[in-house]
């Protein structure tokens, strides 16, 4: 991450100077930082709301029930994780929110899951295999109803905006499987808890 980040910035600066676009690059620095803060404010709203609701669900035992429902899935993908643990429950809630298309709930729940998984880490600065598995599942998108995309398609006069759904499901499933297999292979290769 350190090299990728520095590399992207250095390349941009260099290229900006070479192509005479350094003014654009320098305004992008502050524009980018400003956009990040705006994004944080949006995220803060859903973060507060869903973290609060999640705490109620936790105290009411709802999250533990979710963990039990998702037990086979958790057993398969997260070796060594107790499905009824806090981490197991949070992962289940995140996956449920993703599947239901509750995008703004999925992120706070996912962060919660990451924090719980992080507690099992022996090196706090490094990601564990289970954390990597969880992040890759989330970056591969487990959404079932592409509502935003269907809405945009409808706006431009698609004959049947939702007709892409089978293709989306197929492509999602294939890429998710590829991600999971890749994580599994690499986690077996380098043994680390």
């Amino acid at each position, binding site marked *: 991450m350190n090299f990728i980040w520095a590399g992207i910035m250095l390349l941009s600066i260099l290229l900006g100077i070479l192509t005479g676009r350094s003014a654009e690059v320098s305004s*992008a620095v502050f524009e980018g930082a400003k956009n990040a803060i705006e994004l944080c404010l949006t995220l803060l709203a859903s973060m507060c709301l869903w973290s609060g609701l999640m705490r109620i669900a936790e105290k009411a035992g709802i999250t533990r029930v979710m963990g039990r429902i998702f037990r086979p899935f958790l057993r398969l993908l997260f070796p060594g994780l107790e499905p009824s643990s806090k981490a197991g429950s949070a992962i289940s809630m995140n996956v449920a929110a993703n599947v239901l298309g509750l995008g703004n709930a999925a992120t706070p729940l996912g962060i919660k899951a990451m924090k719980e998984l992080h507690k099992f880490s022996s090196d706090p600065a490094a990601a564990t295999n289970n954390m990597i598995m969880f*992040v890759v599942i989330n970056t591969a998108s487990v959404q079932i109803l592409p509502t935003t995309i269907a809405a945009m398609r409808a706006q431009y006069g698609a004959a049947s905006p939702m007709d892409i759904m089978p293709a989306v499901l197929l492509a999602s499933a294939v890429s998710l499987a590829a*991600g999971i297999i890749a994580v599994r292979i690499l986690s077996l290769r380098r043994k680390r808890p």
Partner: protein
Amino acid sequence: MSALGGFAVPVVIGLILLGGLIRRVPVFDAFLEGAGEGIKTMTAILPSLVGLITAVEMFQASGAMDMLTEALKPAAGLIALPPETMPLAILRPISGGGAFALFDNLLKNFGPDSAAGRVGSVLCGSSETTFYTVTVYYGACGVSKTRYTIFCALLADFIAVIASSLAVKMLF
């Protein structure tokens, strides 16, 4: 479909509240406790997001993004991808807002039911803004060594691009 989305949020919130009341949880106190924690988490994420988004905006402003897509356009043929969707395929894991702006243009210029429009739709629906997700999730728990995360996540994104174009070919 959007009606269904409209239902889901209130129903889920309702169920959580009912569950809490039945189990005699002091619901408002519990809510405040969790929401307060949410703010703390956000302050942990904020620095990473500022770092990432600034880098991405600089990358786009310098013209590096355009050069990258131009350079990779010939590769589109190799993976059976309509060349018009190549910029979208590259931007999708990096910038959510940027990708949706490109997708909007794609729909406007080629129509939602063209091959490019369809592949773009499937591509946007079957992948996520990978770098954003990685930044937010690891930022929240202070992890800097992401090990093989980026490799696996980008591999899944790459497979999603190929799968999108194949799925559209197969199903339409």
